[in-house]
């Protein structure tokens, strides 16, 4: 496979690069502070106004109907330009694709445009205190009431929930382990949200307490009992293409290589290795995109990618600390270092990913 881009793709890249070069803000405060959250949301609105917030979505929802390859190009340019992390990411990368695939026409029209513009910011609510890796053990429940459901229970590790407007998660509607789960959207206005401070002291996560929160039936995605299947499709896209596009790692690797110039050869060696591995992830992703364009489904293969990028991200940030010593914080690498620590944990721990690779791709016995 060539990495030759079509004239249209080149034009698109040029347009994105040009726009970013004049719009990317210098440095926003952390999105886990109130002022940072507001600043990130304003940035999302600016992106959306240029129709660059969700380029691969259909035009009617705020996108451009761009191809997967164009989306990858957008991401490369976005991160290379040093643009901010996306405060909308749980919505646009996790819920959005599920809505497009499993939502009704009305649900799509109602929720996707606001997600694309950053007007609504969505938090995911998978985990519970006793169900982290083992999602089928969830106990939070949705009880049927006339016209809708009432939610009860306790979710945790809900990213962004401290400031988000809406949430989505799985709630138990029957006792069957996997088939008793239902996928529910909910406004956070009615939910008791308790922020959880992370390593950096900021509330990147929150606990959600549901005490009979009412949601109308129109907020259930798919059919009751379909939640597991929809969530697996969602987490598979989370593990795979959409959450962690190569652009981010390419940009990190390029910055590392610049840092390593003149450094001890043993450190420079590690930087060169990271650069090559980011490139490998890029090439692999283009091949996957071509496969998807040709009608292939991305399933357990996504686990290979998740293992690769999460370990690469750890190595890159460890190298940055070795290169910078106590200047890592001042040079802006500490947030990334801490975030990289979470890579092998979220979206299915790497232990779970290894088991998926072994059983589903390699065919080892359960």
């Amino acid at each position: 496979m060539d990495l030759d881009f079509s004239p249209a793709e080149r034009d698109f890249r040029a347009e994105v690069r040009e726009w970013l070069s004049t719009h990317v803000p210098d440095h926003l405060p952390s999105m886990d502070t109130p002022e940072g959250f507001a600043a990130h949301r304003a940035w999302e609105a600016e992106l959306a106004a240029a129709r660059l917030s969700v380029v691969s979505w259909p035009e009617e929802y705020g996108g451009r109907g761009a191809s997967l390859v164009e989306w990858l190009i957008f991401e490369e340019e976005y991160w290379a330009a040093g643009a901010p992390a996306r405060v909308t990411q749980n919505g646009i990368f996790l819920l959005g694709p599920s809505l497009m695939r499993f939502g009704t026409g009305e649900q799509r029209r109602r929720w996707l445009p606001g997600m694309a513009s950053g007007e609504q910011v969505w938090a995911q609510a998978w985990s519970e205190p006793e169900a982290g890796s083992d999602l089928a053990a969830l106990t939070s429940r949705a009880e049927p009431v006339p016209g809708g459901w009432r939610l009860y229970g306790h979710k945790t590790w809900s990213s962004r929930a401290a400031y988000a407007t809406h949430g989505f998660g799985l709630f138990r509607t029957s006792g069957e382990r996997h088939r008793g789960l239902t996928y529910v959207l909910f406004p956070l206005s009615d939910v008791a949200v308790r922020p959880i401070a992370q390593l950096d002291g900021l509330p990147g996560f929150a606990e959600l307490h549901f005490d009979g929160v009412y949601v109308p039936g129109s907020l259930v995605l798919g059919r009751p009992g379909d939640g597991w299947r929809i969530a697996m499709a969602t987490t598979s896209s989370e593990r795979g293409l959409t959450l962690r596009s190569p652009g981010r790692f390419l940009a990190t690797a390029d910055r590392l290589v610049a840092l390593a110039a003149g450094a001890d050869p043993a450190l420079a060696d590690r930087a060169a290795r990271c650069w090559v591995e980011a490139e490998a992830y890029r090439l692999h992703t283009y091949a996957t995109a071509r496969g998807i364009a040709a009608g292939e489904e991305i399933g357990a293969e996504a686990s290979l990618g998740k293992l690769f990028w999460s370990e690469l991200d750890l190595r890159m940030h460890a190298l940055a600390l070795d290169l910078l010593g106590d200047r890592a914080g001042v040079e802006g690498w500490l947030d990334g270092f801490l975030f990289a620590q979470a890579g092998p944990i979220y979206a299915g721990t790497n232990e779970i990913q290894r088991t998926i690779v072994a059983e589903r791709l390699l065919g080892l016995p359960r």
Partner: protein
Amino acid sequence: MMMDAAFSADQLALAANVRDVLRAHCPPAALRSERRPGWKQLAGLGFFQVLSPEEDGGLGLRLIDVVPALEETGRACLPGPVVETAVVGAYLLGGAEPVTVAVLPPGQAYAADADLADLVVVVRDGAARSFPAASVRLSPRPGPDPCRPLFEVTTETPGEPLGADVGAALRAGAVATAAQLVGVARHLLSTTVAYAGARTQFGAPIGSFQAVKHQLADAAVAVEFAAPLVWRAAVTADKALAGADRDASAAKAAAGEAATLAARTALQVHGAIGYTDELDLRFWLARAWSLSSAYGTTAHHRERLRAAIVDGSPRRYP
């Protein structure tokens, strides 16, 4: 896994042909008894002239077109100077006549498979010279791979200088070897998965233990992400793009490391039996080790990558 998406239908069809031929004519048993199993049949496909120009009777294909087929030669552990004859020879000699070629690349002390060669090409100080096999003395030297013996080459004639681009030929040799290493690694993985599903200890197939699963998953990740570097290197070599040497080094280093990891994992999962002549595994272990130091060791390519990327100017984007 999804990597087939990287190749065209024609490229995959050539690989499928090679695979069928090698299944029939280079089965594992042949590795114990024949020096060149399957070569006649591959020659019948035109495989050894695949890169030679059509006017010379070759197929006129590019390096990228044979990457999947080269992977199959690694997967089958095909003995003999495959890369030398089909790739490096085509670059250096043009390929007017079908000859078997052995190569002594710079940085290496010995020529592999020189016992089978019609011509031995020696590259020293940036220049390549070819020697008819009858004009050189070969002394066997110990190496890890019983099906890829090493020979010290003593020349007594000046040989014939070759005018072609030596750098391009060696680069193609490294990329082709990387493709073989990916095939070797894929075979090591699949054969180990099969063993782990059948062998029981402590009352369960050993492949059901997390420790075995996770080791194999890590090896699978390494192979999966070495493969795209190999096709990328073939493309940039074919187009002689800036960065072609860098990409060749990335491919060779990553494929060597993936195959070495797959070998280590295969041996660890098999246990003592993997270490012995009882199984065929040892041929692929040996191939992973021997090809890792062919056309530059992994360490050599890592050093070149450092120079190209950290001390060079590593722009990626078009």
